[in-house]
């Protein structure tokens, strides 16, 4: 019973926040971990971590802790970042400190939705974080979707940085 409740409540990052979602978090996690989703863990953003997160995001993160799902092989981070006025929900799978997959789970803006497509998100695959906390390969922009591209790039950097803190 408890397990079911945990599964429903903790893993069902609900459809409410993701009103215009392409895939909900629960489905994404089930798919990623082949229906054996690990219990979520929590990373607290203490002062130093918060400072670096703010540097990556170019604004205060606006939260003090984030959940992640981790096995010996990989970790999954589901993060929100503002596009122009509304948050974009992005899931990032990291394996061996490199991005295995980046997927837009929900996009709420009226413009810039092109970033949800695989032709764009595939660019993030195999990217890692260099010493300047930037992605190892440059990401090509999309005309008219500058802010969305920027948001996804920041999420990729942040997920890689967070992952490096839980190794």
């Amino acid at each position, binding site marked *: 019973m408890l397990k079911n409740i945990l599964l429903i409540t903790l893993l069902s990052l609900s459809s409410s926040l993701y009103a215009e979602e392409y895939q909900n978090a629960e489905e994404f996690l089930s798919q990623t971990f082949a229906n054996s989703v690990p219990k979520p863990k929590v990373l607290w953003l203490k002062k130093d971590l918060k400072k670096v997160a703010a540097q990556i995001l170019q604004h205060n993160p606006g*939260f*003090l802790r984030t959940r992640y799902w981790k096995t010996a092989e990989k970790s999954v981070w589901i993060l929100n970042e503002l596009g122009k006025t509304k948050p974009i929900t992005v899931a990032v799978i990291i394996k061996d400190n490199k991005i295995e997959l980046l997927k837009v789970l929900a996009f709420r803006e009226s413009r810039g939705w092109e970033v949800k497509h695989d032709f764009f998100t595939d660019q993030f695959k195999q990217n890692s974080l260099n010493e300047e906390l930037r992605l190892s390969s440059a990401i090509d922009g999309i005309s008219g979707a500058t802010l969305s591209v920027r948001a996804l790039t920041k999420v990729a950097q942040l997920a890689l940085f967070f992952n490096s803190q839980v190794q």
Partner: protein
Amino acid sequence: MKKKLWPFLYRLHRYMGLLSALVLIMLAVTGIALNHTEDLKLDSHKINSNAILDWYGIPSPQNLKSFATLDHWLTQVNQNIYFDKAMLIKTEENLLGSVETDEFIVAALSNSLLLLSVEGELIEQTPLNNIKRIGLNSKKAVVIIAGEEQLSSNDGLLSWHSDNNKAVTWSKNTILPESIKKTIQSHFRSSILPLERVLLDIHSGRFFGMIGVIIVDISGIFVIILSLSGLAIWLRRKLIVLKRS
């Protein structure tokens, strides 16, 4: 007739130029600014001048919904959620209640929970479907009704357990102290109107009502006449110079 035409054209050009100069400067300044909306962050900069807000007829909000914790208030005004007098987040969900434990403050929205430090800093927003109520049980654990189920958590919302305890103090609407209410009303009112909207309205003349639109229209016609009269004057001078040489 021909002798009278050119002095008339010169005068027309001069006075039309003088008359439309102010409007053209206004159009140029607002146009340049609007061309760089994102760089200048015109859409995120909000107008807080009471005179302009009154001019637009933006009233103070009256529909405040507040819930008290031990020492604090969570308030919703439209899409804004406030912690005491400070803006916390924007959301499209409804605020349903708030509780305070020894370590945290938890506010329930219709489809998520806000976990706050006792100082009001947002720790995490946890999505959770179909929340109806929030309260505290006798052991100070957070209790919610989500869907048809009553659940409780005593570890900072990290895990939930089925809870059949009937002795729950549910969060209820509270009347907000007047000083906090006034600050929130003032903040909300000054968070509505973006500078971009005002510049767009000045650019089109709408800011000054129908008269403004007509003045901008007339200035547009003046610019067309100015261009044509300027071209005619320039061509005439060119021809005179050519004839003389």
